[in-house]
């Protein structure tokens, strides 16, 4: 058997010498693979990979745009809120000031009115007092004259004198009242 093997091996060609038909078939087999891949299949997938890349990048861009918009809207909103707060504070301040001036005005008005009323009352009282004083003076004079007349028994005709006496009396009374105060 080993004899047979040796004989067979001697008959065999060098394994490093390629047989031509196998070279040809090998070339054909590879060209089939290369042809299909290079002609259609790899360009196909490249297109799709590119589309996918664009889709992903587009998505990222969209998200970024949305974020920027949201940010600007937020800032706008914040600004509006701050403005509103400011406005409200201003209004409150104004109202306070207005209220304060109103109160001062009203207070002044009330004061004025009070003073007017008081003054009017004083004037009235003074007038009344004067009227009462003059009426009293006349009555006192008359009564005193009558009384004196009755006491004396004669009418005191001399008016001029009479009135001077009474006046003097009354003035003395007043002076006493002034001093007693």
């Amino acid at each position, binding site marked *: *058997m*080993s004899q*047979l*093997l040796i004989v*067979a*091996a001697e008959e*065999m060609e060098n*394994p*490093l*010498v*390629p*047989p*031509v*038909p*196998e*070279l040809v*078939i*090998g*070339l*054909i*087999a*590879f060209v*089939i*693979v*290369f042809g*299909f*891949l*290079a002609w*259609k*299949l*790899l360009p*196909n*997938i490249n*297109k*799709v*990979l590119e*589309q*996918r890349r664009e*889709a992903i990048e587009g998505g990222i861009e969209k998200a970024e745009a949305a974020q920027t918009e949201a940010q600007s809207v937020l800032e706008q909103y914040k600004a509006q809120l701050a403005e509103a707060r400011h406005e409200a504070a201003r209004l409150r301040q104004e109202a306070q000031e207005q209220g304060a001036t109103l109160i001062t005005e009203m207070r002044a008005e009330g004061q004025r009115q009070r003073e007017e009323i008081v003054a009017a009352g004083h004037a009235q009282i003074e007038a009344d007092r004067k009227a009462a004083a003059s009426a009293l003076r006349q009555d006192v004079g008359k009564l005193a004259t009558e009384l004196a007349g009755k006491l004396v028994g004669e009418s005191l005709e001399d008016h001029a004198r009479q009135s001077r006496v009474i006046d003097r009396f009354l003035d003395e009374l007043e002076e006493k009242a002034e001093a007693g105060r």
Partner: protein
Amino acid sequence: MSADPTQVLAFETDCHIFDGCGFPAPGLHSFLFEPLWGDADSNVYFNKTMLLALLGSIVIVGFFWAAFRKPQVVPGKLQMVAEAGYDFIRRGVVYETIGKKEGEKYVPLIVSLFFFIWMMNLWSIIPVAQFPVTAIIAYPAVLALIVYVLWVSLTFKRHGFVGFFKNVTGYDKSLGAVLPLAMLIEFFSNLLVRPFTHAVRLFANMFAGHTLLLLFTIASWYLLNGIGIAYAGVSFIMTVVMTAFELFIQALQAYVFVLLTCTYIQGALAEHH
């Protein structure tokens, strides 16, 4: 035992240990196939490796056709797997070595080379086929030849005649007196030895791998007698282990082949060093 040892597989015989029959060791004859059609002497024939080569092409084209014929932006499972493979070669090999700008043109070639070689290697462990097409020198040779022609023409186109010579010989003035010797060595290494080693590296790996698998498979059968059964078990376990190892080597060798291809192309495109 049949008269023609080239046509006998170990398990086709009743040859076992202690039966007074020698170990039918695998050898060169394990890599020869009677033509399925035609005559081996006339150079017009069709054998198992040719069938496997063409079938392998159909498998690859079929796979990528199914995956990439109508690709979706949101990929299905098959497309995702194919994309992962495609992307691995494109990004991990071509862009890494040649660069994105210059390398884009060569992506289809490199991707085709990788998957073609991988498929041809894979036949080694696919039941019924069980023969790596690349263990026949013709197949690696034709691929290495394509790369060689591309490399030479690219170098010419990029650098012109003098530039080509400088590129191939690694012309570098700073070497001084050693320059002629260095140029001679570089010339032989780049122009004559390199395509040979490029093809033989793949061929020899697959050849050796297949021989190892054959050895343990045949031994498992051959030892299946008497006390030998224990050893047959060991041999069978080795067959399984070596099959797993081959699975790794097949992908690795395909990767190495395309990686070297890329470095050759890169060297052709680069300014001479």
